[in-house]
């Protein structure tokens, strides 16, 4: 598992680092959930996702997909359980559906942005992005 830092300025700045891409995505999920909800997360169901964009834009798209899945289906991601990159990026997400007996929503997120997006791939992976709230 990697590390994340969340800074709430006018919007939210997230910095995530990890040794592998899957770890990076799982850390991004943890950061996302720390901003969005209170309550425990479990692996009750799965989603298969596909992305057109490559790194680094892919990370913005991934974060936006987490927002979309939450707002439309109440899906709260737990972790990435499958990942492949061959032209398109395909992955499987495990998670659960929001339950207002178990979860509380903390904040509305509008979108991850490309503004000041940073990505590094040396001795591990690092992403920094700004989220509009």
């Amino acid at each position: 598992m990697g590390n994340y830092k969340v800074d709430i300025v006018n919007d939210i700045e997230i910095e995530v680092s990890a040794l592998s891409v899957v770890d990076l995505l799982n850390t991004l999920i943890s950061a996302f959930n720390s901003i969005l909800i209170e309550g425990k997360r479990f692996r009750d169901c799965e989603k298969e996702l596909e992305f057109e964009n490559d790194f680094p834009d892919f990370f913005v798209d991934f974060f936006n997909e987490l927002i979309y899945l939450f707002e439309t289906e109440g899906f709260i991601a737990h972790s990435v359980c499958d990942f492949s990159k061959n032209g398109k990026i395909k992955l499987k997400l495990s998670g659960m559906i929001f339950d207002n007996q178990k979860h509380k929503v903390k904040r509305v997120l509008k979108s991850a942005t490309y503004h000041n997006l940073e990505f590094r791939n040396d001795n591990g992976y690092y992403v920094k992005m700004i989220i509009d709230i």
Partner: protein
Amino acid sequence: MSSMYRENEYKIVIKKGYREGMRSDAVIYVNKNLERFLEKEAINQIINVTTLPSIVGPAIAMPDIHKGYGFPIGGVAAFDVDGGVISPGSVGYDINCGVRLCSTALKKDDIKGREKELVRALYDNVPLGVGSQGNIYLSDSEYREVLLKGARWAVEKEYGSEDDLENIESNGCIKTNADSVTKKAIERGRSQLGTLGSGNHFLEVSFVDEIFDYEIAEKLGFFKGQIFVMIHTGSRGFGHQICSDYVNIILKASQKYGIKLYDRELAAAPFKSDEGQRYFYAMNASANYAFANRQILKSIVEKTFLKFFKISKEMLSMNTVYDVAHNIAKIEKHIVDGKEKTLIVHRKGATRAFSKNCNELPLKYRDFGQPVIIPGDMGRFSYLLLGSDGSKETFGSSCHGAGRVLSRTKAIENTKGRDIRKELEESGIYLLAGSRDTIYEEVSDAYKDVSDVVEVVCGAGISKKLLRFKPICVIKG
């Protein structure tokens, strides 16, 4: 003369040539008092806007300017429809975030002693807050009608009345098609129509604390102590998704059309290109969603007031004064170098402010100028201004609010140990919010004093003051 200089008490000019790539000047409306809040990044951002192709006139920053994503908040830029560009980031993620102002026949004394009950009644009846769902579930065909008809759809469903429509910018409906609306946006907005949202979205009940032009106020039926309602919200998840989806599409289009970007969030495509037109129609559909949203919320507030005060609709007389968008791109005609030009005017955190005698305005405002609604922070004043002749210098635009000066983290840090709700109550303001964090993030200290912002736009002749409001009840998500 230096390329960046203060032209007068209210205006800083940055001349074309100050930095590489500028195609026009940039102008920042700010007085010496507010200049200390000017962020370097916001200045850079307004300069970046001047690099976009076919920009007409200067890129303009209002006194509530602060840094955004690519395009600063409080910014205005106009492009020729024939050769110019359209840019989703120059409108913002919350398309047609805006404000509805309603007058009533009630006076401050009618609420005295019942403020807490009223704020509770509003909090219980208005869907708001994080992840809130509305009480309206739309079928596909109804959804399409909302996107095409805007506030008119809401009136047809008996949310408010026909009278409301003429007092909404563009009569609450911008002509468009729904063909380029993305499936994701439809799904994201499906259960959010008729909801307030959270963060800096709010509903405020206030009273007229000061009148600046008694003659006009009287002609419009406004009086001191009169109760008004202000609703600040936008296109919710629908608009956020449209912007997200189209920033992606337009970024690729920028490359395709060879548009150099100094910031990726300034992604732009020729207005008349396929991509540009698709975004334009999708943006207009989002704008209509937001107009419908505010119309529904006005109706919910009206019903809450009727039940609370146990009076008739006629006795309450909750009328729409005006409804303005402050994140939008609109096709408008403006005089440039003595000639009328058709432009696509982008306003991001800026309000349309047409001066008097403009045919676009409802008849009752044509002698006075367009109402410009300026919300302050939750602890201080809000204003009703009127568009003035000086707005011809700003493509008919004025400021939109106060503008943040403290980060959310700093605001929470600085207010540690303070009971903000209690402080507000001691000054006669009753607040209910869906989240404790919202209260501390949205504290007055986090914002510029809107009175300073208003002073600049009025001093510069862009708008003139008509009314000042003091809040009594505030609800936030």
